[in-house]
């Protein structure tokens, strides 16, 4: 058995959709079989009647009245539901809608919403990056492709397509760019200046740009090309386009080029292009032997040298000899090797060039020419934790240094390790406090016998603030060198003491 109860609210109007929603709420009250709330127009009264929800009370309602009709299991429950409906009507529940504006789902909608777009920053999975990049190029946008895992053929095709349209493709696998002072992806806040940088390496670009900034100069633009641009397959298409752009850019007075050593025919193309430029160049083909330079270019063996040739050295009171002497006294005799635990691949390569120059034999998972082929039982070992084998299914160590932290602990606790090299890379995209991570790792190690030497790639304009990062590291007993090259020289000097 069920009990029908109606209540009429005189002179009441509420939108019918709102009433239908409230009816649903009343229907779900305990002991309610069915419920309806309707304005008492003749047609609505007919609907209520046909649904068996109208009683004598409800029949009295006019077109300006609200009928609340409830069929409950008992009279008490029906009355409780009517009271409940009164509450709902006097205080409609606040809607918990989604907060904040919805983002567009298609590139076209985003372009329409923004207006005047000129660059697409693409960081979708590699399999999709090519089609998204092509879409952006066909809409007249320059492109920066952060994504990796794009076939070289696709990269070349994209870059040729862009060349036809007079557009720039930075990447794929381009982690860093700084266009007119705007840091893109993993990049630093660097003052605007006269030096343009073209870099096939993200951390290479970061290190050179921040050293330039700390030397008191500035950067006009830092253009990333993607790690494979100077390969034979791609043929330096982006590097050449970037050199065109920087040549034409009045703000740029000098140009720095950073890359792994390119294939000989590609190097030739690039150097011929450099020779045609009216602007002086510094070229750092990191790990390459010296080679013939055009008249307007100088070769830099390291990132540090590239920055110094472009802007002068970074003023620093760093006394490497004094620190080396102190640690020579302190180190146990068994500790003779350098352990590099890097998040930046190019910084790891730069360290290897310095070890090679010092005549040391070394092994790396990201080797430069001259590295040992197999990992020695004990010896100088430089690990790039940003390499694929460490980042598969994991965030990059610049974002989450946890795995690299473990490398610091392992190095300290290894009785053969004399010096541990750590790169702290800050700026956009990077971890909020990588120095704190390194400091905690040092504290977590059982042994404090080895020296931990860090470089901090960044500026005081970065959100993490370089000075604050240095303070954190030094408070943890970590030696902070002014550059990765300086850190590497100190490390191998201590190890070879």
């Amino acid at each position, binding site marked *: 058995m069920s009990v029908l109860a109606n209540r009429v609210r005189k002179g009441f109007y509420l*939108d019918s*959709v709102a009433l*239908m*929603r409230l*009816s649903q709420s009343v229907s779900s009250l305990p002991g309610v079989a*069915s*419920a309806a709330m309707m304005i008492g127009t003749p*047609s609505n009264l*007919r*609907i*209520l009647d046909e649904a068996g*929800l109208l009683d004598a009370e409800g029949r009295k309602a006019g077109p300006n009245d609200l009928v609340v*009709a409830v069929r409950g299991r008992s009279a008490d429950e029906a009355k409780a539901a009517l009271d409940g409906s009164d509450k709902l009507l006097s205080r409609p529940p606040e*809607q918990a*809608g*989604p907060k904040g*504006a*919805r*983002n*567009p*789902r*298609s*590139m*076209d*909608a*985003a*372009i329409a919403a*923004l*207006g*005047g*777009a*000129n660059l*697409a*920053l693409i*960081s979708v999975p590699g399999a999709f990056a090519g*089609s*998204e990049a*092509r879409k952006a190029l*066909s809409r007249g946008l*320059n492109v920066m492709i*952060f*994504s990796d895992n794009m076939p070289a053929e696709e990269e070349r095709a994209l870059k040729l397509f*862009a060349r036809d*349209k007079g557009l*720039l493709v930075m990447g794929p696998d381009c982690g860093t760019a700084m*266009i*007119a002072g*705007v*840091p*893109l*992806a993993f990049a630093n806040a660097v003052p605007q200046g006269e030096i343009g940088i073209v870099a096939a390496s993200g951390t290479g670009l970061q290190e050179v740009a921040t050293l330039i900034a700390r030397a008191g100069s500035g950067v*006009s*633009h830092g253009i990333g090309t993607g790690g494979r641009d100077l390969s034979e397959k791609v043929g330096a298409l982006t590097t050449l*386009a970037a050199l*065109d*752009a920087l040549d034409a*850019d009045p*703000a740029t007075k000098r140009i720095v080029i950073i890359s792994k050593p390119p294939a000989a025919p590609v190097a030739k193309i690039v150097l011929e292009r450099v020779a045609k430029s009216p602007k002086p160049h510094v070229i750092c083909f990191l790990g390459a032997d010296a080679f013939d330079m055009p008249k307007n270019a100088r070769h830099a063996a390291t990132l540090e040298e590239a920055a110094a040739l472009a802007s002068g050295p970074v003023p620093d009171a760093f006394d490497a000899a004094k620190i080396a002497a102190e640690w020579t006294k302190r180190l146990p005799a068994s500790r003779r090797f350098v352990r590099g635990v890097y998040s930046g691949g190019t910084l790891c390569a730069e360290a290897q060039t310095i070890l090679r120059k010092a005549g040391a034999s070394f092994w790396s998972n990201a080797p430069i020419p001259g590295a040992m082929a197999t990992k020695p039982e004990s010896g100088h070992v430089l690990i790039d934790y940003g390499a694929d084998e460490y980042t598969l299914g994991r965030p990059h160590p610049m974002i989450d240094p946890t795995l690299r932290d473990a490398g610091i602990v392992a190095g300290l606790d290894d009785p053969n390790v004399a010096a541990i090299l750590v790169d702290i890379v800050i700026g*956009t*995209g990077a971890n909020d406090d990588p120095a704190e991570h390194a400091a905690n790792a040092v504290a977590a190690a059982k042994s404090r016998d080895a020296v931990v030497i860090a470089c901090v790639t960044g500026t005081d304009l970065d959100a993490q603030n370089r000075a604050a990062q240095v303070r954190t590291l030094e408070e943890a007993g970590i030696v902070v060198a002014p550059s990765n090259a300086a850190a590497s020289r100190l490390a191998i000097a201590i190890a070879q003491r």
Partner: protein
Amino acid sequence: MSGQSLLATGLRIINVGLDGFARDLSRAGIPVSHVDWAPPAKGDARLAGFLAKLDGDPAIDAANKEALARFLKAEPVLIDVVRADTVLQGLGDRTILHAGPPIEWDRMCGPLRGAIQGAIVLEGWAPDLDAAEKLAASGGIKFAPNHHYGAVGPMTGMITRSMPVLVVENRGFGNRAYCTLNEGLGKVMRFGGNDDSVLARLRWLASDLGPALAAALKLSGGLALKPIIARGLSMGDEMHQRNVACTSLFVRTMAPWLARAVPDSEKLAKILEFCGGNDQFFLNVAMAMGKSIADPVKGVAHSTLVTAMCRNGTDFGIRVAATGDRWYVAPVEQPRGLYFPGYTEADANPDIGDSAIVETIGLGGFAMAASPAVAGFVGAGSASEALDITRSMVDISAGRNPDWTIPGLDFAGVPVGIDVRRVVETGIAPLINTGIAHRKPGIGQVGAGTVRAPLACFVQALEALAEGK
């Protein structure tokens, strides 16, 4: 925008992928628009290939520009109400026009069959509903979609020869489109109703209301519809689920002309009562208008924009500009919504009606942001959700209509020109506001809600367009 000028002008960035990059940029004050990216066509490589093929095609971009311009250049004017067979070429004896894409009797849903039975009796082709059913089932009636005759009709969409139809002329192009008069609420033929009260009302529409409106419209010189829609949007109508403002504006505007056209004050009162007492009266005007606006877009070669969406209760069909009269058909979906007392989802018929022509021109679900009350039919029902529904329709549309603006979106125009490519790419199907019919014939409306156009229609169209390239 060349690489060189990229260095010389301030960056304005489209971020596709990791949202952290967009956050960093906007924190640094750089103008950035973040795309909530998902694999195109939900990761279907074959469709992604078609999309890539159709995406950079300059012929398509130019065609869609032209198609969009045609949507925007429309000047719809309601000019007349006439007997259907005087304007619908070939609509003769024993022919019944229905909503949606083509369908045979055997596959028709309950309400459509119910409405057909009623229409047969109305036209005198059978003495009663049972005889009408036998006649229809035995192949004695020719069935055809309204769209094949330049017309549209809500829900079951019945048009037979003697019914009065609204005539909307698109003065931007000179074409005309037609729709029946709205029968009001309750038991009505558009929801499959077919009893004596339904037929009596239809006869009155033909004998009294139609001629009166025709006379009034002639006296007034016709009713320009674009401005009425613009006002309606600012008053909370989206012209599909909610037409209360436009109906009021219509009655207010036409009342003096009706008074001049209908000297008998009792007859006039009944007409005003009928129109003014039916919040959905204007829906059929909006539909004829929609058809008149979309028709000139049909046949724009290479254009991937949708020119019609409609349902017959069994199938959902769309047409695409480049392929003219061809239908892309898939099973209709079940509307989700709220129900009148005594009814539940179990009673609901699948989606039906030509009314999705209003979504095709940027109203209805596309204008949800103008009509927070209608958003009550969807999800949490909040006004902010209504804004997001319109924003999501922007994602699949070629442009916006600056003449029809939405106050809640800072007076941005409604999205218009559904691009088949964008629908397949994003997986966002057009959202349609709709009434819900009882699945059995003769009962009528049981609720209202929203429904999505089936993605399969757009996938088929994309395949056809890609094959044509």
